């Protein structure tokens, strides 16, 4: 289910960049500033900025937002405070979806232990991007455009709801590009494990309802494909 609120803890450049990129996806994007300890960034932003502290009093948050329908980003610059914030939120709200940012792998593990649903290790991710740019410049550019830029070419996840359409075929036996104009890269099974389309396991896996196909293609072709095999995107 797509959430309607995005709550970003951390009034800093990371927080603002996240807000800028996700603002079109949510009805409400709010940035929370940790008292006065965070540097005020002089930006003409139309985003809502509120203050918060690291006490366990979340009443104002509960009163204002439906946390079941919210996604939270923890992006405080101080690693220890960011971990403390994550653990506080997790202990108060068991089902909250928390994405946390961190510098290094060591604190990434701590954040996972603290209850973050997804951790983005900034240094590791940036370094990975740099090495990809050096080692595989074309792939990196193409994938960057597909994943992050405004492009007709998309990577989408398509949940199979009409497996009977494939008439008992195996994923590797279908000529995806000829029949549907898309390329299926991998299949994510119901248990969450993901397999490459030509892996031995997928070759012997009959397509069934609930499978999620990771497809690359032009937006219109993907929409057509979705109409045939499922309906909505999984979120």
């Amino acid at each position, binding site marked *: 289910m797509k959430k309607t609120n*995005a709550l970003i803890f951390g009034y800093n*450049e*990371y927080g*603002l*960049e*996240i*807000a*800028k*990129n*996700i603002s079109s*996806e949510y009805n409400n994007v709010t940035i929370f500033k940790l008292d006065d300890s965070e540097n005020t960034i002089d930006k003409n932003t139309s985003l809502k900025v509120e203050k918060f502290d690291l006490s366990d009093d979340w009443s104002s948050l509960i009163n204002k937002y439906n946390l079941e329908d919210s996604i939270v*980003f923890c992006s405080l610059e101080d690693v220890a405070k960011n971990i403390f914030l994550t653990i506080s939120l997790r202990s108060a709200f068991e089902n909250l979806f928390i*994405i946390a940012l961190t510098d*290094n792998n060591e604190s990434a593990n701590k954040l996972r232990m603290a209850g973050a649903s*997804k951790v*983005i290790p*900034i*240094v*590791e*991710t*940036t*370094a*990975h*991007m*740099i*090495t990809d*740019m*050096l*080692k*595989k410049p*074309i*792939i990196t*550019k*193409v*994938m960057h*455009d597909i*994943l*992050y830029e405004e492009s007709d070419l998309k*990577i*989408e*996840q398509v949940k199979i709801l009409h497996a009977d359409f494939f008439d008992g075929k195996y994923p*590797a036996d279908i000529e995806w*590009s000829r029949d549907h*104009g898309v*390329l299926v*890269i*991998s299949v*994510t099974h119901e248990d969450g494990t*993901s397999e*490459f389309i*030509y*892996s031995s396991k997928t070759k012997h896996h009959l397509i069934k309802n609930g499978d*999620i196909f*990771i497809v*690359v*293609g*032009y937006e219109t072709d993907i929409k057509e494909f979705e109409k045939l095999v499922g309906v909505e*995107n*999984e*979120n």
Partner: protein
Amino acid sequence: MSFFIRLFIDFAYFLNSSVWYQRKRRFVYNILENDDYKYKKYFDIFMMILIFSSVSILIYEVRRDAHDYFQFFNNYIISFIFFIEYILRLWISSSISKVIINQNEYSDLLGRKFNFWFVIKRVFKDKLDYVFSVKAIIDLLAIMPFFHELRLLRIFILFRVFKLFRYAKSFQTFAAVLATKKFEFFTLSMFAAIVIFVSSVLVYVMEANNPSSPINTLYEAFYWSIVTISTVGYGDVVAVSPEGQFVAVVVILSGISVLAFTTSLFVSAFTEKLEDIKESKVIQDIAKMQRIYIICGYEEIAKEVSKKLIRANLNILVLDDSLERTEMAKKDGLMALQYNPGSVDSYKKLHIDMSKQVKAILCLRQDDIQNVYSSLTIRSIDKNIYILSLLMNRSNKNKLLHSGVNEILYDKEFVGLIAKEYIGQPVAFEAIHAIRSENSTVKMEEILVTERISRTITYVKDLDNINYRIVVLGIYKKSSGRFYFNPINDTLLEVGDHLLVIGNYMFIKEYVKYLSKKMKT
């Protein structure tokens, strides 16, 4: 000007401008003197083998009769090779043609007559300077066994061992390090010499007339003094009189201080020069490498990037002006120099051809000012080298672009884009991330369409990728610089295009082999 002198000068100009002659001369210089020349080490090893075989034959001959072949090899062949080497070294030690040309131009400039005898004197002086250098004398002595009829000269074979100094770099380093303490060693030697001289004379005076003393001559007194001061003390020659024993006590105490002082000199010389030795070793290693990635600044992101590049077996050099960060890079097993990446001098000191040997320069300081400064410096040295830089503050993006950076990575924006993609397509994001991670067996790769591949595979329909369980995502066309997703079967493949494929890395390897080997049917 006489005809002879005119001919002499013309010949000098001819040699100086002759490509053939200069190439030969450069080759000889490289093989004999240039440590950065890749074939020099083979020459050095060859010469060391000759030296060791020569000494081995000498040792063998002491108690046995060596075969005539060995003697011939030792006396003539090795000596002849050393003689040729000596002549070549003499040849490249100074350029005669340059001396003549310089003198001629000097004379022309001042309107004076060309001084032939001055040139001859100058040339002789230059060559004699070389002939009387320590290394050249050792070289000459090593040739002496050629005159094997003079039995005494055979011992000169041992001088060949000294030639090892020429070929083993570590010996030269050792000598260079000790040379830094020349004054201290000289002072110590003077002190030891005085103690030895005084004690020899004293003990001779006190012991020579004593019938029970084994010291009867000045030579024996000198021998006793050396054995005592060196703290060896064989005990074959000892002072027996109380006066002589008192001298012995003084010499023993002096010996302890001489030994301690010598040891500390060695240690301090090496400690002081250790960093220089390591630095010159790094520079030597770098000079021999190709496709080098220079990382300017060693902070958190640089650390991670280095780890990944090292895992990919790429050549990395870290430059950082901070001692602490340079040491950290060294501890992480990287080649690192404490050089300022923003100084032209730092790159000059590397003795590398930036355009040919350096693949990319990464400005990874987490400080925009430093990155702008470094990239401007690099751009001033080489207009075309690829520079990638981190951007820490969006407002500095134009400054970095203006400084000549090819590619900029702004991590905050990147994190924002990741967040957007993740919340939109979490399963797709994780699946793609898994494929792109280093540990995955499924990889995304670029396959370059080479001349060989294009000879047998003309169209996309010929690719046969399904049999290798590979997904061809698309083609990057070199001619248009565009990516064509899922190209139709009749798309033409041209040299320089890249196929973007996804598959198990073993299958991709096999597939590349298949593409290169496929025969036209």
